[in-house]
C-alpha cells in the first residue's frame, strides 16, 4: 500500500515538476529571444493623454507631489472611467512587463543599461502589487474605497516608467526610438 502511495505521489510530483519547468523555460526563452517588432506589437494601446491627466493630478512634471489647490481633484469614479476600470489597469500592468523587456532588450547590447532595467523592473513589480491589491479589493467588493489611491499611484509609476524607457533608448542612441514613442 505504501509503495502505491509512493508511486502515485512521485508520478504527480514529477509531472508537475517537468510541466512547470517546461512552462517557465519556454516563457523565459520567448522573452529572451523576442525581437524589437514583437515587443512593440505586445504593447497594448493606452490613451497617453488620459494617463498623463491622472498622473499630473497628483504630481508635477518633475515627479514632486502636487500641493496646490488644484491637485488631487480627480475622484475615484473619474479615475476609474479615465482608466477604463480594472481592464485598463490590467492593460497597464501588461504594458509594464513589455517596458521591462524593452529595457532588457537594450541591455543585450549595452550591459550598462542593467542598472536602469533593474530599477524599471522594480517599478513594474510595484505596479503589479497595486493592481493585485485592487483585484483583491474587487473580489471583496471594496474596490471603490481603494481604487483612487492605488490606481493613481500605479498610473503615476507607469507614466514615469514610459518616460524613463524613452529616455533610456534616447541616451543609448537607439535607432528605434521614434517607433517606440508612437507605440507608447
Amino acid at each position, binding site marked *: 500500500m505504501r509503495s502505491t502511495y509512493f508511486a502515485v505521489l*512521485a508520478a504527480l510530483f514529477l509531472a508537475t515538476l517537468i510541466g512547470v519547468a517546461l512552462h517557465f523555460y519556454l516563457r523565459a526563452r520567448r522573452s529572451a529571444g523576442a525581437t524589437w517588432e514583437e515587443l512593440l506589437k505586445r504593447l497594448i494601446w493606452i490613451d497617453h493623454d488620459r494617463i498623463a491627466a491622472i498622473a499630473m493630478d497628483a504630481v508635477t512634471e518633475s515627479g514632486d*507631489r502636487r500641493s496646490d489647490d488644484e491637485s488631487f481633484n480627480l475622484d475615484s469614479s473619474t479615475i476609474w472611467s479615465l482608466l477604463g476600470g480594472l481592464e485598463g489597469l490590467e492593460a497597464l500592468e501588461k504594458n509594464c512587463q513589455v517596458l521591462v523587456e524593452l529595457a532588457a532588450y537594450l541591455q543585450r547590447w549595452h550591459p*550598462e543599461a542593467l*542598472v536602469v532595467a533593474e530599477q524599471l523592473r522594480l517599478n513594474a513589480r510595484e505596479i503589479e502589487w497595486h493592481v493585485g491589491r485592487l483585484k483583491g479589493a474587487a473580489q471583496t467588493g471594496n474596490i471603490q474605497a481603494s481604487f483612487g489611491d492605488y490606481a493613481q499611484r500605479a498610473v503615476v509609476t507607469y507614466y*514615469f516608467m514610459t518616460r524613463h524607457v524613452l529616455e533610456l533608448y534616447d541616451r543609448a542612441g537607439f535607432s528605434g526610438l521614434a517607433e517606440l514613442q508612437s507605440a507608447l
Partner: protein
Amino acid sequence: MQLTGFVRFLWAACFLGHILLLLVLFRRDRARSFPIFTTFVVFNIARTIVLYLTHRFLLGDAYAHAFRFFLIPDETLQFLVLFEVALHVFRPTGVWARDVWKTFAGMACASVVLALPLMWLALPSTATQARAIYVRGVFLCALLMSELFVSMLALSATVGLPWKTHVARIAQGLGAYSIVCVVTYTISNYFGNETQIFAVLATIRSTAYVVCEGYWIVMLWQEAPVPRELPESMLTQIYALQRQVEYDLTRIRTWRRS
C-alpha cells in the same frame, strides 16, 4: 566489485569530461565568474582519482565506503553551485533584488516541505539500515535539487530577471541531470535497490551526467554575445537616469491622496 566494460567507459568519459571542462573554465576565463562550479569540477576530478586507486589497490568494501564518504561533499557542492547560479541571477546589480530574497528563501523552505513526505514514503528494500539511509539521502538531495532549479526558473521568469548565457547553461545542465536523478531514484526505490534494475538505472544516471558534461564543455567554450561599448558620457547619463528612476519610485511610494 566487478565493473562492466560500459561502466568503465562511462567512468573514463566522466573523468576526461571533467578535465576538459576544467581546461575550458580556465582557458575561457570562466573560473573567476564561477568559482564554486570550478571547485565542484576539481572535486570531481580528485574524487575519481581516489576512487580509481581505491578500486585498483584496496580490497573488500573499501570502494563502497570511499564512494559514500564523498557523497556529502559532492551533494553540498551541487547545492552550492545552484546557489552560485542564484547569486548571478537574483543579484543583477551586485545586491539581492529587493523583491526576490524573501520569495527565494520561502521557496527553499517549501522545497524541503514537499520533498520530505516523498522521501519518507520511499521504502528502499536494502540489505542494511545504513544503505537505506544512504539511498534515502541521495533521493532527498535529488528531489531538493530539482525543486530548487525549477523554483529558480519560475521565480526569475515571474519577476523578469533574465539569465545570462553561461549561468543559464550551467543551471540547465545541473537541473536536467537532477530531474533524471529523481526519475531513476524513484524507479529504483519502487522496484528495489538490490536488483538488476538498480544497476541499469545507475548506468542511465551516469550516461546522463556525461551528456551534461559534454553540454557544459560546448556551451562554456562558446562566447556570450559581444556587447557594444557605450561612450563615457552616455554611461554617466544612464547612471543619472537610474538614480532618477529610483528617486521617482521612492517619492511615489510616500505620497498620499489626502
